[in-house]
């Protein structure tokens, strides 16, 4: 025991020493300001650890500017923020599918963006294996931003403000897709949601009402195996027995793995901020949280891949449904939704 502590200490010491001995001479004024990413109490270790992408204030601000900049899209109208709106916890409010370039729609419902740093894979089908490469998907999709990487980079290079901001964040050297993607990752990964009423109750700073408390118990018994605390997702892929949409023909995870065992499985979404992100489901087919609960209790379709946890439907009485809804409302994080740090700069 003592031995391993000493061992760790010596490693730490070695690490410190390495940092010191490797420090370049040129430090000082031009160096970007380091940012720390704080893992909230009770959260597991994040998946994205900013490896080779040390977060800095300059990198974050650059990422934010890119996130809100229409020039990342072909016609200038579809920045990331057009589909990921802060007041909707960075989802698209009120649209089952989001608008993209040339009056087209996305084929999936835009999820809220928060606690992304804890996700092993991104998108409803888990097709994206790393937060840094995620923006390439909307950038190049003809029904989203419809741009090419080379064009975007050319536009950024032509802009004096961007040239200055890239330099401030990453030092000398050309603007390239790697730097752009790293800056976007610094912004997106920093969006953490951990200040809902639920979180304050957990910290002993607030108390649930009787209905919320009862809803929490029901949630833990009937929902938490998939929507696992504290992230409210276990990051797995599941078939909850939704009917296949005849037009979209979206088989979810199977599209990525090619494995029939993954047919109709979609990533379990976090339920944090669920009241801010309507509509619901991978294609936005549900117009209220209540409608999703009704699905679990009455319309689960059984197929070879339907999850055993929902196969026999989830029994929920009308009273329980109301309590569940009360509890889910406590997951809304108004601190995040109003945090000017993540809002567009004027």
């Amino acid at each position, binding site marked *: 025991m003592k031995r391993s502590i*000493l061992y760790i*200490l*010596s490693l730490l010491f070695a690490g410190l*020493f390495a940092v010191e001995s490797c420090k370049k001479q040129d430090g000082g004024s031009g160096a970007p300001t380091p940012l720390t990413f704080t893992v909230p109490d009770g959260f597991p270790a994040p998946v994205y650890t900013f490896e080779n992408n040390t977060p800095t204030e300059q990198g974050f601000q650059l990422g934010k500017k890119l996130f809100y900049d229409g020039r990342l899209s072909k016609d200038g109208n579809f920045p990331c923020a057009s589909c990921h709106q802060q007041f909707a916890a960075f989802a698209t409010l009120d649209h089952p599918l989001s608008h993209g370039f040339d009056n087209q729609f996305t084929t999936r419902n835009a999820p809220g963006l928060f606690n992304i740093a804890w996700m092993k894979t991104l998108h409803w089908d888990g*097709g994206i294996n*790393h937060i840094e490469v995620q923006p390439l998907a909307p950038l190049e999709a003809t029904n989203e931003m419809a741009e090419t990487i080379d064009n975007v980079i050319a536009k950024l290079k032509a802009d004096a403000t961007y040239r200055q901001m890239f330099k401030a964040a990453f030092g000398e050297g050309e603007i*390239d897709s790697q730097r752009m993607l790293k800056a976007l990752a610094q912004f997106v990964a920093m969006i953490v949601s951990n200040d809902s009423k639920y979180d304050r109750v957990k910290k002993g700073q607030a108390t649930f009402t009787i209905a919320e408390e009862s809803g929490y118990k029901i949630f833990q018994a009937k929902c938490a195996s998939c929507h696992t605390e504290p992230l409210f997702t276990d990051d797995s892929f599941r078939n909850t027995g939704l009917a296949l949409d005849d037009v979209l023909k979206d088989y979810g995870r199977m599209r990525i793995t090619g494995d029939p065992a993954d047919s109709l499985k979609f990533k379990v979404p976090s339920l944090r901020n669920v009241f801010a992100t309507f509509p619901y489901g991978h294609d936005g087919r549900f117009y209220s949280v209540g409608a999703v609960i009704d699905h679990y209790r009455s319309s689960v379709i059984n197929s070879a891949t339907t999850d055993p946890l929902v196969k026999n439907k989830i029994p929920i009485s009308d009273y329980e449904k109301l309590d569940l809804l009360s509890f889910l409302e406590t997951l809304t994080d108004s601190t995040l939704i109003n945090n000017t740090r993540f809002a567009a700069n004027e």
Partner: protein
Amino acid sequence: MKKVSLYGIFFCVLIFSACQKELTGNVNTARQYTVRITFQPAVNSQALAIGETYQNDLGEDYTVTAFRFYAAYPSLKNNNAALNVTNEKKYRLVDAGISSSVSFTITTADSVFNGLSFQVGVDSIDNVSGAQSGDLDPGKGMFWTWNSGYVMAKLEGTSSFSSMPANEFTYHVGGFSGVNNSIRIIALSTQQVKLNTGHTTDIIVQADINKWFSGVHALKISDNAFVHSPGALAKQYADNYATMFSIAEIVSE
């Protein structure tokens, strides 16, 4: 106790010396030999002409509009013992449409070889480590944006046998993990070559496109006009193109 602090010292020394290395310049070592490897896209040992019509071994006509692949870890061997090779870049995107991309040089301290090997494809780790630059820049059009991962090799063109719009065919071969792994190691034997200092030795490696259709598996354009995702078919194309390489010529001036 004692063992423990020794670990610490060991680490310090290790790390310190790693930094030291960065500071000291290139030590002038013994002899260095330079070898230039040139990939020559071809059809049946004739240099490939973009837009020209060819016939594959399955009796189908085709023209090529794009042909690219990632080459990595070039190494020379002498009776299976690897020579000590210095290679500036881990990956090279060889593009039939960009003449500067088909050649590169490596240096070695050893002077005799009778084999060349390299990898076609991008290591698994570089498929899952986020944004990359240089030849791996996703702007090169060799990265799947909706199903993260590199296209290891790509062949595009037209054929009257294609059922796709405009008679196009597009083979984008990738997949890096588990059963979908499409990374292939190519090992070619050569005559015994003796390198000379002060001279660059040229190895011309031909890449015969016909092999994409019939190297190992018979893959008709009429059956499959496209591959756009990892899987069994992509692996068959990888098996096929793994056989497309041959040594055309070795020239030591």
